[in-house]
Structure formats: C-alpha cells, structure tokens
C-alpha cells in the first residue's frame, strides 16, 4: 500500500473535477483521481449548449435566467444558489472562450446562442436564445477544453485510480449555543489502482467529490456504463445525507429502445414531437412553448401519449421526433452528431424520416448537499471542513425538482470553479487530519471477500434485474404500489448481493471486481431514490405520483434529506432516517407552473 499526501485531492475528472483542478492546481498542490482517463468522462456526451444571459442575439439578463431555473425546478430550487449560477454563467462562458473553446459564432463573430427548453424571455413570455453552443457537441468541447487547460497548467492526474472509500473521523464539538454535537472531518480517500490492483491512500487537507451521476440505476438511460453513483454512495455510507434523491430527470428524446441521447437542441432548432397519428401533441400539454417545455413536462406528455394508445411503431411504444421540415444543410451545421446517431443505431435518415424516441434516464437532481461555496454539509447547516462536492454528485440545489437543459454544463463550470477555489483556500490554513489506523482495511476486506467469494449470484444478472424494476416502477409515473414493488425488489437484490461472486481472480485491471463494487453503490442509490420517492406524497418536477398528482406547497415545499442510520426506519425500510430541509427563497414565491 502506498500513501500520498496532497493539499487538495479531486475525485473525478469530468467537467466539474477538471474545472476545479484548473483553479486548485494554480493555488495548492493538487491531485486528480479518476476512474477513467479524463477525456472519457460523460461531460463529453452533453450536446446542446450552456446557457448564459450574454444577450448576444436578443435581449436577456441573468435575472430572467434565475427565474426560469427556479420555475423549471418547480420551486424547490435554492434561490440563492440559482442566482449565483445565473450571474456567474456569463463569466463561465467567457472563461471557456478564453481557454479556447470553439463556440459557434454569430455573423458579427460573437458567441452564437440558441433556444432551449424552459429558457424564456421576461418570466415566461416566449422562448429566448440563451444557450451558447458548439454544434451539438458542446459537452465534448467543454471536456476537451478543460483537459487541454489542465495539460497547460500541469495538473497531476492519477488515471484509472478508482476511489472506493473516504477516510473520515468523528470529533466531539460544541455549537455556538453550547449544545454538543459530532463533527465529521475528512482525512483523505482510498483508491484502487486499476492497472495493478494495488490500494493507495491519499491524505489531503481538502477533498473535492466530482464523481457525476447514477443513471445506471435504470435500464433505459443516456448515461455511461461507468455512472454508478460512486461518490453519492461513498458519502452516504459515511453518514452524510443525500438530498432530494426522488428527483430524477428523464430526458424526452432518447433513441427508442436504446436510450441514447438526442439533444433538446433538435427541438430548439425547430424539431417537433409527433404521436402515431402525426399530431403535434405538445400543443395540448404546453400551449405557449409547446415542444420547448421543460423536460419533466415533455417526458410525461410523451409517456402519456404512449399510455393512451397513440404511440408509434410495432409495439406502439415510442413517439417521433420530426426534423424532416428542416433544411438538410441546417441539420448538418447545427445537429450533425445526433442525426448520425439516428443513422448508425436505428438506420433512420432524419432528413426524410421521423426518428423514434422515448424518455431516457438522464440526470439526478439530488445528491450530496452543499452550500454555495461547494462545501459539503453533514446535516441541514453544519459544514464538513475541507470536504467539497460539485456537479451532478452534488445538490446545491440549483436544479430543484427538474433541471433545465444546459444548466448542468453551467453547474459544473460555476460550482466546479468555486469548489476548486474554496478547496485550495481552505487547504492554505488547515492542517492535515490524522489518518485513522488501518484506514485501508475496510476496502481491502471488501475487495478480498468479493474476489474470493464462491457465491452463485452474478453481478450482471442482479444489475439487470435492478435496472428492469427501476424502469418499470420508478420512471416517469410512480405510485405507492409501484414504489413499494421497487423497494421490495431492491431488498431482495441486496440479500442476493451478499452471495455474489466474480469470476476474474486476478489483480490487474480486474474490471469484473469493479462492476461488483459498482453494483453495491447502485443498490444503495436505488434504495435511497425509492424511499425518498415514497416519502413524498405529492407531484413536483421530475417526481410524479399518480396517487398524489398535485403539488403540495403547504407540506412539501421542502428538500428531503436521507441519512443512513442503523437505529432508524423510514417507510418500513430499516436503516434509513428521513428529515427535511427548508428551501432558500429570495425573490420568487411559488406559482402554478404553466408553459
């Protein structure tokens, strides 16, 4: 076992992690640990754009952007955080341009902007052109540009080092009012070097989690195979709460049957959703902005069309994304990648044929709670000194119950940057926390028991069963009955997981073992999502309860906070404690959400 010492350790090298690294690396001795090579991160799969009120093509301002973000999130967005994001969006885009990002340009040579779902002029009057973009590979260009600048600044990467545990210690502390409490402190992280199978401990004054989402809980997802909720689960296992886990975004336009993302930019550029009868059904659900309504509304409308028998295809189980009225040159210039996906994977020619689409699990709005300085919270207000999180793994909360398109690329840049700066500043004055004795033992035991297990269960089979039940019972429509079914199944799978065995008995690149560990995270996260969903008897944003179809602001205008606590029980599930946290409101009172 090797021990390394850094001022700042960043876990994850997607957009948030590398944006943090660029800041931290210039201020403090920094290492970035990543389970993949940095340029493999899923930020690269983002397509449509990154919103900022540059007002390059029409009137716009950050206050409108804040309002859209709050309304889009169905009002449980923390408004102070949304304001920070919308304000800093402008510099975030300009910073990327200065780093070299090749944005598409206006005829005057300025950064071009286009329409995106839920982004409007003057508080919902009409769609506004706010999304800055590089064709339909904006995420790819952001990931490449951030990596390029990490190379420029000599950021130290540990590629294919998979962080599997965090080293934390509990300290007795006293609050200002004299009450005693237990303060969590972070001492470092434990990682598995994939190439050798060796365990490494990284001691650090500051640790930044930027590990991304957990889309692989579902079968139909736009997410990469590697998005298994690692960071969320590691924090959760150490008693850190998970916030708002019931809010999961299903992106309307996944390629039917495959879940591969087709950007909302397709609709921003004029694409239209149609049912089997050819009807533009969004006119019925969102009369003002139609196909450019926020994703939760569009996804639910599509699922409803299918449910009511107006789906297309041999099994009537998808709808169409119609681009055939757009000029082929326009499609080639603005949407080259996604039209290529339709050709490659479904054999459909988007110039002349409508593309079969259906909602796909895309984004987790919830995550590790942080404040606006990206500092992780151990309860509703207590910071864990030196522990930070940014990007999809975190819940700051700028996305509330439903994230607007483009706001994730913005989130990673704004809060990734903040995490890097605050982590480095904290490390300047802080001392190292002493490493706990045998800090590696937990992980070593976990790995050895999994590698040497003689069980009869297979990782792939259990994961497939988990993904099936989540697709069936925790997707766009939920009810107590479906959620209970999911929880029961997860409970069964957790039992069977104890009897799982991996076939690869080697040390080098044991990805079989890795998938076994990832499945453990997926099960924890799926359970948290389901229990949170059951415990919120209302419908809001991405969380729709058929048994409680209305929003309930009197009782549920709050964040949910889930804790692992062996003495507690929530909704009949042992080991989980439920709490709520107030939403931060500054200038917007909740209104009915119509588009």
């Amino acid at each position, binding site marked *: 076992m090797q021990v390394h010492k850094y001022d700042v350790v960043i876990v994850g090298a997607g957009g948030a992690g590398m944006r943090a690294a660029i800041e931290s690396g210039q201020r403090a001795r920094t290492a970035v640990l990543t389970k*993949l*090579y940095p*340029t*493999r*991160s*899923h930020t*690269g*799969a983002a397509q449509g754009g990154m919103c900022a009120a540059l007002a390059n093509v029409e009137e716009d301002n950050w206050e409108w952007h804040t309002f859209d973000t709050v309304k889009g999130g169905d009002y449980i967005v923390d408004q102070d955080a949304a304001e920070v994001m919308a304000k800093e969006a402008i510099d975030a*885009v*300009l910073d990327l*341009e*200065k*780093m*070299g990002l*090749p*944005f598409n*340009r*206006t005829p*005057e*040579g*300025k950064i071009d902007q286009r329409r995106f779902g839920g982004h409007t002029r003057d508080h919902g009057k009409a769609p506004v052109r706010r999304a800055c973009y*590089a*064709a339909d*590979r904006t995420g*790819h260009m952001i990931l*490449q540009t951030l990596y*390029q*600048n990490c190379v420029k600044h000599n950021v130290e990467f540990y590629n294919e080092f998979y962080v599997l545990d965090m080293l934390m210690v509990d300290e007795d502390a006293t609050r200002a009012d004299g009450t005693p409490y237990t303060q969590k402190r972070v001492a470092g992280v434990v990682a598995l070097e994939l190439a050798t199978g060796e365990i490494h401990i990284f001691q650090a004054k500051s640790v930044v989690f930027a590990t991304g989402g957990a889309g692989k809980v579902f079968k139909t997802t736009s997410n*990469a*195979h590697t998005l298994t909720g690692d960071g969320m689960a590691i924090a959760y296992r150490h008693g850190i709460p998970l916030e708002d886990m019931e809010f999961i975004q299903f992106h309307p336009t996944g390629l*039917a*049957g495959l879940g591969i993302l087709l950007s909302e930019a397709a609709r921003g550029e004029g694409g239209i959703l149609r049912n*089997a009868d*050819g*009807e*533009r059904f969004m006119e019925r659900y969102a009369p003002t902005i139609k196909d450019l309504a926020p994703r939760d509304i569009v996804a639910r409308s599509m699922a409803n069309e299918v449910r009511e028998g107006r789906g*297309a*295809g*041999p099994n009537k189980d998808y709808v*169409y994304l*119609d681009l055939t009225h757009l000029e082929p040159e326009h499609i080639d210039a603005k949407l080259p990648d996604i039209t290529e996906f339709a050709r*490659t994977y*479904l*054999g*459909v020619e988007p110039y002349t*044929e*409508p593309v*079969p689409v259906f909602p796909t699990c895309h984004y987790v709005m919830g995550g590790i709670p942080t404040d606006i300085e990206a500092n992780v919270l151990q309860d509703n207000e207590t910071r864990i000194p030196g522990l930070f999180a940014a990007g999809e793994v975190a819940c700051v909360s700028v996305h509330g119950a439903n994230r607007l398109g483009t706001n994730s690329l913005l989130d990673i840049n704004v809060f990734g940057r903040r995490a890097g700066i605050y982590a480095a500043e904290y490390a300047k004055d802080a001392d190292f926390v002493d490493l706990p004795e045998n800090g590696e033992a937990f992980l070593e035991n976990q790995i050895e028991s999994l590698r040497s297990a003689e069980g009869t269960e297979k*990782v*792939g*089979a259990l994961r497939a069963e988990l993904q099936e039940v989540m697709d069936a019972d925790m997707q766009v429509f939920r009810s107590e009955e479906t959620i209970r079914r999911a929880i029961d199944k997860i409970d069964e799978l957790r039992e069977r997981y104890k009897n799982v065995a*991996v*076939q*690869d*008995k*080697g040390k*080098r*690149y044991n*990805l*079989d073992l890795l998938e076994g560990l990832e499945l453990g995270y997926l099960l924890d996260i799926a359970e948290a999502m389901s229990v949170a969903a059951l415990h919120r008897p209302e419908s809001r944003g991405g969380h729709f309860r058929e048994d409680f179809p209305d929003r309930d602001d009197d009782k549920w205008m709050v964040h949910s906070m889930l804790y692992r606590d062996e003495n507690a029980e929530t909704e009949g599930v042992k080991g989980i404690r439920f709490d709520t946290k107030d939403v931060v409101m500054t200038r917007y009172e909740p209104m009915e959400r119509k588009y």
Partner: protein
Amino acid sequence: MTTTFEPTSTTDDAGAVDSFTVTMQVRRYQPEFHEEGYWESWTVEMHGTDRVLDALHKIKWELDGSLTFRRSCAHGICGSDAMRINGVNRLACKVLLKDLDTSKPITVEAIKGLPVEKDMIVDMEPFFQSYREIMPFLIADESQEPTRERLQSAEAREAFDDTTKCILCAACTSSCPVFWTDGQYFGPAAIVNAHRFIFDDRDEGGDMRLEVLNDKEGVWRCRTTFNCTDACPRGIQVTKAIAEVKQAILARNI
C-alpha cells in the same frame, strides 16, 4: 393549429431485426495466468441492432467475467473502446453486428502499436505523451484579452471545425503502419490536435507546434496510406489535416 404528416413504413420496422447467433473470436492476453496470448471463441445469441460491444458485454456478464475491455458511454463519444474488429480499427460501440458477415467468426483484438496490458486494454500513456508534446491548448497573450469574448468569424471557426471532433480514442494512430514500426512517430491523433490549434486564428503558438512537427518523428513520416482516415469513428479527414499541416510548415518556412 395541429399539423400532421404521414409516418413512413420504414421507421415502423426500426429495430425489428430478428435475433441471430454470432461467434466472437477474441484475442486474449491474461499475463497473470498465461505467459502468451491466445485466441478464444464464444457463440452468443444477439438481437436486431446489437453492437460488437453488446456481444462482448454478453460474454463478460454471462459467460466469462474475466474478459476485459474499456468502455464507458457506449455511443461513440468517450473514445474508450477502440479495438481491431475483423482486422480494422473501430469503436466496438459503433459497429452493428448485422452490418458484419455473421456467418463467419468476428475477430476482436487490442489496437496495435501500444503495449497490451490485458485482453483489449493497452497502455495509453505513450499516446497521451505525444498528444501533450504538441501543446494541445490555446496559446494567446493573456494581457491582451478582451473583457468580452474574442471575436471570430464563422469562416475562421470553420477552418478547424473538423479536427475539433477528435475524442482521443487512438483508432487512427494505432492503425498507422508507420506508428507500428516506429513508436516514436507522433502519429495522426497528435497531428490532428495540433491542426486544431494551428488553424485557429485566435491561437499564437502555431509556429512552435509546426517546429515540433517538423522533427524527424513529425509529419514527414506520414506515408498517406489513409488508414487513419478510414479508422476515425468521428469521420475526421485525418490524412487531409496532416497534409494541411505539411503545407503550413512549407508555407511558413519553418
């Protein structure tokens, strides 16, 4: 007003291809258990629009968990799963099985020219080393930065559009016969990424990069076999980009 159109029959058939069996013949390298590499075959039942990656997953998840390969996004964006499939470099997630001749075994091997670590996993470090050497970042005088964005015309932006698509999968470099015999050669991917900056009118480091690529292991090693262009999963005109860099060296008297 509600507009309508007639759905075409072809899309109704999308994905409606029958299941079929396919034999995957995979080049294994398991240095902890066997000194030498060897071939192993599995026959699996696959469906409609399944890809080579799906067949490898099926083997790994159901038949042999030790089969090892990198993959992440599974739709051609992350660049993890470049492999030699039936003798040519492709991303396993972008090759549909039904587009191959499934009456014969489909061969899958690690990409060539980089040290094999285990099965399809190669050491990517030499590849990224070449990439870093061409200074793959915008070089501009930071004291001259405007408060807003730099202006750039759509035409100037178009000049390097093609080479911004690169996902660093190494399919091009590891398809190059020059690279196979001389690992010191920068290889197509590094040149593509140099091109992306040399032809960006905001960049001021072009001459430095051209200097690097004018080296004996630089662009002049290219023998225009077009393997790289054929291998690129992003459709980048790699050989053309290399030719443009050669011309720039001559034009700028490097």
